[in-house]
């Protein structure tokens, strides 16, 4: 075996200390720092529809070299109007019927977790809760990661179980059960000195009450019926993420593509492209666009002529539609320990961008979100 020079050995040791493929920009203070993040988000929809304010805080506490405890808290304040059903309007044109603007809910959610790193292996266990007036959720997730090939390859697998209860403002104590199981597997690979790729696959199985208690359908021969969806849903999704550094523009380009299908007949695709660049003074900026398209569920219809025999829904989220949106962000590292991040996204939903099935123009709307995050690492 050839001897390695002391200089090469020292260089190798120093290089091995570089973060692996799951490098994080703000982890500079150390390999296992204390961390506190706080985020405020504002979400709004056009046409006087939903407004959501989100406050989120999280903390990471290292214990020794290999263990970390995590805690996360979220509060959502929701208000505004939401579509309930579609009805024939003047001149035979379908119109959307909304709730009053008084819908208000206050959701509180939190989770705690423990993370262990042993050699090239990492294990994360999380337990979470969520509660609002008409929805409660208890969930558990377990994720494992393993690095291979001198941290050139990371394999991740995960499982989550969520036990939810759904009620409505009319019968707040009458909860219906909804169970969801998620199975996840992914690989992140260093392709070369300037690019990374991540491929992942997820399968979800839900059963129980999967309808929306606030949605109705309009049947022309008999009036209104409650939304009724199948009591089982199987979703399969694949996502590919590619990130490459381009020296000619001193920037990174990122592409994320996703495909999904389910047993309700919804097929979807998404493509997001982003440009990321560092600027002098510890600035990092990013900008991009996202395109999304889906076909409608097999049982979806904007209106029904006669009472449907099986599942039925006029929920605009199960219609055929697409969207195009832009997103942008800026991160400023104020000191080695503190950074602030601002991000924005604005999306235009359009029925004309659907990939199959049916939808109606009155369901089109625009949503936007803005968020600010303060991050501390010690």
């Amino acid at each position, binding site marked *: 075996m050839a001897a390695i020079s002391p200089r090469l050995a020292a260089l190798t040791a120093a290089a091995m200390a570089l973060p692996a493929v799951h490098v994080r920009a703000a982890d500079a203070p150390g390999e296992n720092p204390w961390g506190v993040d706080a985020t405020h988000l504002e979400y709004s929809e056009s046409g006087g529809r939903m407004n959501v304010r989100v406050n989120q805080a999280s903390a990471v506490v290292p214990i020794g070299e290999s263990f970390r405890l995590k805690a996360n808290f979220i509060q959502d304040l929701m208000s505004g109007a939401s579509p309930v059903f579609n009805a024939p309007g003047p001149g035979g044109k379908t119109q959307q019927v909304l709730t009053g603007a008084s819908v208000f809910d206050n959701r509180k959610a939190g989770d705690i977790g423990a993370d262990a790193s042993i050699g090239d292996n990492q294990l994360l266990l999380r337990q979470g809760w969520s509660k609002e007036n008409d929805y409660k959720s208890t969930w558990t997730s377990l994720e494992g990661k393993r690095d291979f090939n001198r941290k050139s*390859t990371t394999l991740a697998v995960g499982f989550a179980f969520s036990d939810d209860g759904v009620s409505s403002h009319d019968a707040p104590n009458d909860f219906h059960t909804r169970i969801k199981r998620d199975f996840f597997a992914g690989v992140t690979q260093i392709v070369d000195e300037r690019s990374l790729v991540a491929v992942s696959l997820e399968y979800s199985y839900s059963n129980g009450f999967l309808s929306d208690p606030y949605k109705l359908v309009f049947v022309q021969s008999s009036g209104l019926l409650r939304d009724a969806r199948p009591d089982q849903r199987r979703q399969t999704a694949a996502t590919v993420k590619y990130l490459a550094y381009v020296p000619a523009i001193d920037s990174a380009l990122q592409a994320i593509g996703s495909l999904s*299908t389910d047993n309700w007949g919804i097929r979807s695709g998404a493509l997001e492209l982003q440009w990321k660049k560092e600027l002098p003074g510890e600035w990092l900026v990013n900008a991009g666009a996202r395109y999304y398209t889906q076909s409608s569920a097999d049982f979806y219809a904007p209106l029904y002529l006669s009472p449907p025999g099986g599942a039925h829904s006029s929920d605009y989220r199960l219609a055929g539609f697409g969207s195009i949106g832009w997103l942008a962000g800026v991160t400023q590292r104020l000191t080695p320990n503190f950074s602030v991040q601002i991000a924005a996204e604005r999306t235009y939903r359009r029925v004309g961008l659907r990939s199959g099935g049916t939808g109606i123009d009155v369901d089109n709307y625009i*949503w936007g979100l803005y968020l600010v995050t303060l991050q501390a690492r010690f």
Partner: protein
Amino acid sequence: MTLAARLIVLAAVVVALLATAGCATVQPWERGTLAKPVMAIEDPAHETAQKLRTYGAKEGGASATGVGGGGCGCN
């Protein structure tokens, strides 16, 4: 073959190709560019979580973005 089965086969093929490509390991001292902040493969956690929750509440499709996080009565 259903679309779900095709997705699984496609992902398995890509994973196998990646595993093969992984044999040509990029040496640690060649990872200076990969350590730049713009090359972080994971976007900021809070931003990612909020965006995925928004997509999940407003779209009927799914994405393979990892496990964890409870449901909500989002309208």
